[in-house]
């Protein structure tokens, strides 16, 4: 396939490819600052077992989002009084979330149309 890329080689999640960003942004937007475990927990809660999340995979995603300026992180103390890194959504991240949500809707529509055309 022409558009095979490095990220396809990375450990697979069963989350549709490219939507993890969207899910993380949505989570942080709704829940406020969370550490990695908190985010993973929340995602599993929302999907309630319909989706198997390899929890480690959220860390590269968090780094990517931070690199793009959509989320930011600070070190703080967690519930068990351990040092933990808390992630929060930025203003740019909120904007991006809105754009990506629309994009997602369009993608679904496009692929649906494609499937209908093919059949």
């Amino acid at each position, binding site marked *: 396939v*022409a*558009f*095979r*890329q*490095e*990220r396809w080689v*990375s*450990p697979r999640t069963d989350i549709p*490819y*490219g939507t993890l960003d969207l899910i993380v942004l949505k989570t942080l937007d709704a829940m406020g600052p969370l*550490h*990695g*475990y908190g985010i*993973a*927990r929340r995602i599993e809660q929302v999907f309630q077992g319909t989706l198997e999340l*390899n*929890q*480690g*995979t959220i*860390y*590269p995603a968090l*780094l*990517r989002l*931070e*690199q*793009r*300026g*959509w989320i930011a992180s600070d070190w703080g103390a*967690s519930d*068990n009084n*351990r*040092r*933990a*890194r808390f992630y929060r959504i930025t203003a*740019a991240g909120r904007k*991006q979330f809105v754009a990506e949500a629309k*994009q997602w809707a*369009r*993608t679904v*529509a*496009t*692929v649906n149309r494609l499937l209908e055309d093919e059949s």
Partner: protein
Amino acid sequence: MSALRELWSRVLSMVGATRRDDTLTEELQHHLELLTQEYRAKGLPDAEARAAARQSLGNEWHTQEAYRRQSRLPSIDSLITDVRFAVRRLRRDLGTTLSAVILLTLGVTASLLTGDVLDRLLLRPPAAVGTPERAKRLYVAFDHDSPGALVTNYATVDGLATGAAGAFESVACYMTQSAGLGRGRDARQLSVVAYSTSYFDVLSLKPALGTLPLGSAGAAPDAAVISYGLWQRAFGGDSGAIGKPLRLGANVFTIRAVTPKGFAGIDDDPTDAWVPLAAIAEARLGPTWRMAPSYFMLRVVSRLRPGIQDTAAESLASTAYRAGTQPDFSDGKKHTAWIVLGELPAARQPGGTREIRVAMWIAAVAGLVMLIACGNVGNLLLARGLRHAAELALKTSFGATRLRLMREILIEAALLAGAAGVASLLLVLWLSTAAGKLLLPPAVVAEGVLSPRLLILACGISILATLLLGVVPAFRLTSVRILNPAHAFQNRASWAMDVFTGLQVALSVPPVIAALLFASSLWHAKQVNFGLQTTNVSVLSMNADELGSAVKSHDAHRRAAERLALLYEVQGVSLVQTVPMRGVYATMFQIAGPHTEPGRSIPYVNGVDPSYFNVMGMHFVAGHNFTNADNVKGGNPVMVINEAFAKAYWPGQNPLGHCAVVGTTNKACAVVVGVVADTSMWPWLEFAHHSEPSYFVPVEQYGDLNPQRAILVRTTTLSETTLPMLRRQVQSSGPSLPYIDVWSFDDVFQPSLRPLRLGAQLFVVLGALGVVIACAGLATVTGYAVTRRTRELGIRAALGASTRDLVFGTVAQSLAAVAIGLVVGTICAYGSSHWLKTLLFEMDPAIPILYVAVALLLLGMASLSAFVPARRAGQLNPVEALRQE
């Protein structure tokens, strides 16, 4: 923006990689603990809870690897994947790829070639010279004039060396001359430098063989140095050449060293041999030559002391120079002299020669041509990208980031530019010698082509081309609008393509204008009447020193002239003392009887035979020519003068019949028998109508005035074979003759015409290249527009739109872009035209009609290239067009 931001933080993360890894480990550890707690809370025993937590978190190594990959710059293997993909895509569309590479190659070659020429001319340090930044050539500027080469006598050089010893480690002087090597058919002419002591200290060369005469101690009175080239040619590279005699003309020197390979001297023409100045000067001027004020032919070079700044050295040297005797000025006023230091090669005169300035303009225009080519290929990439917009949109749907897509497009651009770069490099290596001959002094050409600098330049230009042609498509094709999946399945136009088209047309205006300006300037310059008919005239001469004596030289030249006259192709032959426009000669002169004394400068004299005026196409305005009977020893003392002479000495009178005593030995008064029309004294365009009082006497009678001789030959035609034929004819008159210098008379105009001819030729090539590339680009854009809108056009055709409407509708947008481009380009060209003024000949470059004409011409050509592919739109069959998806 966010894509750039990501790239930037990836770049930043190159430092501090360990800290980042530690952070992740800590986060994962924390995550694991919380997970374990969670499982424990669900009631799992300790060990099982820990195992379950590990399973939920996934393979830690994978996570860390993915994290690292995200934090680093994209890895090499993904780059290779992208390159492979780009190669596949380029191969799929081989036609477009090939035309893109060809167009780019044209543009890149133009830039690389001119860039290389400028580098060799102006930037590359002189070959083989040690610490070249300290080796300097001395120039002199008077008041606020631009500096010219310092050409002076030995006393002045000596004064500079002692007066500015604080700044200079060594000061040396030299003069160039040509000398014959060998006799008869093997005779060759060498370019010889007569060097003073310290000359080789200034140059600081590492000899290929032998020991260079350094300092005053090393300067043996007969020490000759030969060039690597001469060593190969004359001695076959034999190391036994050291110590062998070198016979140059009447002098014999001993070879002491061979200069390093690649060193061709520091003058415009490659130097073959170096001989001591003392030997040459003493033979000519006697032992007191060092004091002779008239020995005004020495050029000065120096080596700065370490750490001395140019400005400090210049002020010291200026003071030292002003302390000595300075040249007289014709206006009789005192002028303040400033010594200016320049780089060692004579071609790098501070302020630049006219030729250098033309070369810089050519390089700038070559850059424009490259821009046009890049714009064009950028357009091709855009057009193809837009055709495949659906593919890009799908990739985005599957998570490809914008950065990723941009990288793909840039890699494709880089592959195209790289291929063009390699092709250009090969082309440049092939063309370089020819281009060098056109644009560079011969000595620079002799240094050779291949240098790492050319490779670096090629890489730099390829990278620049990649960015120029790739950046706009990369941004345009990955923009949100294009990638919007809802629209991805439509074909679309892009304003960027029209901008590119307009830009290409705008950029092709200046080269075309420059080509026309230079061509008409050259035409103007060629029309200049110097008063002599020089076409088909050749000049032959032999070195008097090598012939033994002035009398022997005269006889040899006369015999040669007689032999030449026998040739069928020869219409006229004349034996002269001075070649007109090549030099002047003056001697003691005393007019008998009433006359006006014009104040300054004695008139110039030339000893000629009666055929001279005919051979050079001069015409008599009064009186008559002298006869063959006059042109013998002891004949009637007669002279022919020019109009300027008559005007200066006998204003308002008939000069015929007046007489003057010429020279010191001939006491008889020479009677004026004829007056010829004025001719130009020098081949400079600016002084074409400037004549000075001159007179002509029979060469046989006045042979002792001047030992120099030359033969002027007028032939029916002057082709490539003429000069060798003339040389052979003279050679056959004596087997032991020294080297016979033969050249076409019109060569004297070369220095004046060269910059104009250079500009005319190269701007025409570059202008044509620019226009062709721009028009080809326009045809592509229009062709794409027709393909893209086939369906729409089909519908319109079905609804009854006329062919004309369809065709015009297709080209309207492109032609609007062309028109805007033309207006902008023409205005810019007009606005910047005054910079060319000093390079043109008697021409104001701001001729509005020329700009309008060029704009209209380009508009016509652009319309043609747009309409040809657009005709397809008019010929569409509605039924078939509608069937296309």
